[in-house]
């Protein structure tokens, strides 16, 4: 029997008696070598069902997760210092100037996207943070104490919950 074992060293050629090649071993491993195997991978039907199920789940989550996670809010909140300076809609294009300790930061709302157009901060990190739309996110100019965000609307009517 050891002679036959050489043939399926790689596990691809599985004979009906390959479970006898290794005396004294349990048979869990050879479940896949019985007639129920269905492919070159020697997967059992249950394996295939599990894999297809997982594939369907991940395909479904491609569509479901963004719907649950993203904000879909149409409202931009602009904070300067520690208070809310302005609240405006994403749908109408406009420029908002916010005065901070360093000067004026200009925030642009255009085509449903919000970005920092210019800011007096030394590195311009906020300007390079790019833009975002109703999917939610935030832009911050830390030196000039400006925070722009589109946050998730809570279904329960609260603004935020802390723990």
């Amino acid at each position, binding site marked *: 029997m050891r002679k036959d074992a050489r043939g399926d060293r790689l596990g691809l050629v599985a004979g009906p008696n390959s479970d006898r090649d290794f005396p004294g071993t349990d048979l869990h*491993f050879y*479940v896949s070598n019985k007639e129920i195997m269905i492919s070159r991978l020697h997967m*059992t039907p249950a394996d295939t069902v599990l894999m297809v199920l*997982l594939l369907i789940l991940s395909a479904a989550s491609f569509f479901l997760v963004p719907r649950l996670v993203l904000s879909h809010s149409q409202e931009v909140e602009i904070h300067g210092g520690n208070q809310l300076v302005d609240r405006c809609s994403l749908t109408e294009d406009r420029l908002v100037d916010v005065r901070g300790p360093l000067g004026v930061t200009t925030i642009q709302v255009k085509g449903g996207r919000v970005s920092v157009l210019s800011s007096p901060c030394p590195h311009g990190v906020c300007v390079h943070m790019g833009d975002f739309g109703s999917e*939610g996110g935030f832009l911050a100019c830390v030196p000039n104490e400006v925070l722009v965000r589109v946050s998730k609307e809570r279904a329960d009517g609260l603004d935020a919950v802390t723990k």
Partner: protein
Amino acid sequence: MTGGVRELARLALLLALATVIHTVEAFIPVTFVWFRFGFANIIGLSTLYLFGFRDAAFVTIGRIFLGSLATGLFGSPAFLLSLSGGTCALLTMALVFRYGSGIFSEIGVSLAGATAHNLAQLVTAYFVLIRSEGIFLLLPVMMLTAVGTGLLNGLAARFFVKHFRIFNA
């Protein structure tokens, strides 16, 4: 007595192998910094098939501690991610193996383990690293990767178990 020594030597060999895979895996560049594919689970799964749950737990926990010491990531978020991923994967694989080894082959057990591994990492990352629901946008990607790594790990474990048994026959 000799049986005990044999067992110990085999376990040490498995642990060493798992640690090496764990360490080398840290060098694979991925976009999501601290996430892992979980290839080291190959050895955990093989140990489960060869020696049972207790030894598999020993090998898995051992390789996470040794591997993170070797990569210098002990105590970092990466360590927490692999710890949660590794233990969840092991528990899932053990459950599927215990109650479903009649219908699932190694591939099925490994698929379940890989999915648990990636989901556990994601949930841990949410609690430890990024306190934002936005991280769950990675969920579909992680689940898709889990199917790939699950298949690969299952096949690798099957070869490994087979060869291990040939050499120890």
